[in-house]
């Protein structure tokens, strides 16, 4: 029962963080501020959803499976790299725009 409550809280808060990241992506004024929403909030949201899935599997089966945690691990490694590359591409795009 209490494990189910923990899983429900984690999955709803994770989905709320994913929505928050997309609201940031939609509302913020330019590309360098828009980078903040998806790279931080959405990554944390997916991490919380995967942890909730692991906790729910524990509630059903009774054993802890840690292999699902490779998804947020991979996301935590790759999100800064892709954000850095998008920032570099946006810088080059803005410089080309200023020249022409």
């Amino acid at each position, binding site marked *: 029962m209490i494990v189910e409550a923990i899983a429900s809280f984690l*999955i709803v808060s994770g*989905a709320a963080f994913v*929505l928050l990241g*997309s*609201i940031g992506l939609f509302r913020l004024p330019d590309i360098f501020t828009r980078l903040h929403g998806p790279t931080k909030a959405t990554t944390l949201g*997916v991490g919380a*959803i995967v942890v909730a*899935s692991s906790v729910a599997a524990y509630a059903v089966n009774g054993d802890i499976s840690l292999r699902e945690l490779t998804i947020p691990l*991979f996301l935590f490694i790759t999100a800064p790299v892709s954000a850095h590359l998008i920032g570099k591409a946006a810088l080059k795009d803005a410089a080309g725009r200023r020249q022409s």
Partner: protein
Amino acid sequence: MLTTAITVSLVLVGAAVALTLLRLALGPTMPDRILALDTLAIDAIALVVILGLLNATALSFEAALLLATMGFVGTVALCKFLIGRNIID
């Protein structure tokens, strides 16, 4: 309780996908669209994990990991194309 939470979170992630699609359609520059596509891949991971929780299968794990890998590779390839006009130096 868990079923209600799954329904609520599916609605929230669906709204996030709709906002990201709007940014993908509007986005004034190319990096905006690349960022929206990257976010769509991450939203797809969240949806796959939630649906796997709803159906109580362990099969969704491999699909989510594959989506994460392919989303990252696609983002890196598009960004490197914009930066240097060639993907593999």
